[in-house]
């Protein structure tokens, strides 16, 4: 089967500053359906730039990108928007939920655009509830983002990314604003989705977070310097169970003093 993401000798040069910045210098990459990829690398190595290219939010200076077999270089602004709407899901570092808009309505948002226009209000609602359920947040559907914890907000964002049944879910530092336990919870959600067949590409700084993925790519100065399968993968469910026993033990130790 053809890869979902197929990039060849892709370059990105930012010309906006005084000196042009060569942020991505010739990356070639195939990502197949069902993969779970972590993009790693030092700050400034070009991870976000590459993610923006993968997400069709930005155009490469050079090279070709085929998403699900479609060459995106020939598409105009609106066609790119439709492609993003249809084939991609986004999870951002800062959650980027609409403020003062309920969790449910945030999840509904992608269905208000593109080909989904013809769906009925009830269908949209049902589909959004389904996705909230898959991230375990049905009981928070009516909450506003400021009434949700960071982990819950990120789960709403994931649900929003899933709602149009994308080919690839793209996440730039999805755990960047979360504590380690919540990070593991979010990775648990990703692992569950990945098992259900969803392709995920995420950026992370943290090695132990990358170990929840199946494949790790390491970028340095805009080139991929390492590309390897994760051996001895962490399983979020197990890690959470471990954390729980550790907490209980800590509580038992603390209680006599109290």
């Amino acid at each position: 089967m053809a890869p979902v993401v197929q990039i060849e000798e892709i370059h990105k040069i930012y010309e906006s500053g005084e000196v042009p910045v060569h942020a991505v210098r010739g990356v070639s990459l195939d990502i197949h359906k069902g993969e779970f990829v972590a993009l790693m690398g030092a700050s400034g190595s070009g991870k976000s730039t590459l993610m923006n290219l993968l997400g069709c939010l930005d155009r490469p200076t050079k090279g070709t990108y085929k998403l699900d077999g479609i060459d995106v270089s020939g598409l105009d602004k609106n066609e790119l928007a439709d492609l993003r709407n249809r084939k991609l899901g986004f999870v951002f570092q800062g959650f980027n939920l609409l403020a003062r808009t309920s969790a449910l309505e945030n999840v509904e948002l992608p269905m208000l655009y593109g080909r989904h226009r013809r769906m009925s209000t009830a269908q949209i609602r049902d589909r959004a509830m389904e996705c909230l359920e898959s991230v375990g947040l049905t009981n928070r559907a009516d909450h506003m983002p400021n009434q949700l914890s960071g982990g819950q907000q990120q789960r709403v964002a994931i649900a929003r990314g899933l709602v149009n049944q994308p080919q690839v879910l793209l996440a730039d530092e999805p755990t960047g604003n979360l504590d380690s336990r919540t990070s593991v919870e979010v990775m648990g959600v990703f692992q569950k989705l990945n098992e259900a067949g969803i392709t995920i590409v995420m950026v992370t700084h943290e090695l132990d977070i990358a170990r929840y993925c199946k494949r790790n790519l390491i970028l340095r100065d805009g080139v991929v310097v390492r590309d390897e399968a994760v051996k001895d993968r962490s399983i979020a469910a197990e890690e959470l169970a471990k954390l729980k026993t550790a907490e209980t033990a800590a509580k038992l130790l603390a209680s006599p003093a109290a």
Partner: protein
Amino acid sequence: MRFSSTIRVALRALRRNKMRSILTALGIIIGIGAVITVVSMGNGTKARIEAQVAALGRNIITVYPGSSSSGGMRGGFGSSVTLTVEDAEAIAAEVADIDGVSPEVRDRNQVLANGLNWSTNINGESPDYPYIKNWNIVAGSMFSDQDVKSLAKVAVIGKTVVDQLFPNEDPIGQTLRIRNLPFRVVGVLDVKGFSLFGSDQDDVVIIPYTSHMKRVSRRANISTILVQGASPEKLDVVKQHIEDLLTQRRKGREPDFTVRTQEELAATATANSEAMTFLLMGVALVSLVVGGIGVMNIMLVSVTERTREIGIRLAIGAHGRDVLTQFLIEAILLSLLGGVLGILSGIGASNLASIYMGIPTLIAPWSIGVAVGVSSVIGLCFGFFPALKAARLDPIEALRYE
């Protein structure tokens, strides 16, 4: 994006900043309110003038001294010496389809009675006068043709004069003195109120025009000639006949008179109030433009504030057009809100104006439609630039915006 959700999003955005929305709409509220009020005043004044013109009498044609080209209609009173009793008699004798003619001589003078005195209008008229003016005599009767012929010292007086000179008694049969000449009161006119030009029509003493010319003012010419046409349809023909007759009587001299029908008079009177209405409308429109700029300003603020939201929408598949419509609708709703509040305050203001300032007002239904239309157009025009700015944002930069 679907229309219903666009409206919902826009309403939510406006509700989120209630105070700001109201303050922004204030310019539009004032502008629309002013338009509604001004139009209602113009409308009310026009209606009042029309009523007053109707009260002038039925099918009235007035002949003024002085030609219309020299502005004689206004300035001619007393200065031109061109209309004569013979002119009036010729009209009465020769023009068809007329019901009455009254040569008018007007003057102001001191009147004494009962040891009281009062400065009032002394009008010389023919016995046709009350009939022409559609003005009832409530006590006594009008003087007769015989009185005109004999230069009789008789008077018919208005309500104001009655109040001033005969406060506690029946004026009929009493004597009042004009220029020291005793006049017997034979009739009292019904109350008529204020005229088109704001004068008290009841402040009048009417005497035979002959007595006026020979005894009181001692002049050879008359002020105006009042003619009553037999029917409204023939008024223009009658007017033409009068003009022809008077021209013919002047044997080739420059026409030194002006003939006006009641409708033409009304048009002249409403012209002033219409000019005033247009002037005030101009001021109101300026306020609307200022209000529109306010809308534009706040929409620019709104776009900047919600840059990240715009970034999210664009990233997940909104087209520039979707964002454009969203902000346009928000701007239109904002100024429509101003429009609706403006209509309400305009209605309120015109009620206040008529209750406390006595200005006649009449809300014109079309002005409400225009107000709604104008405020949406303002929203559309002044919201377009901010909305375009939003639609042209780059999703990556918008998402990164702090």
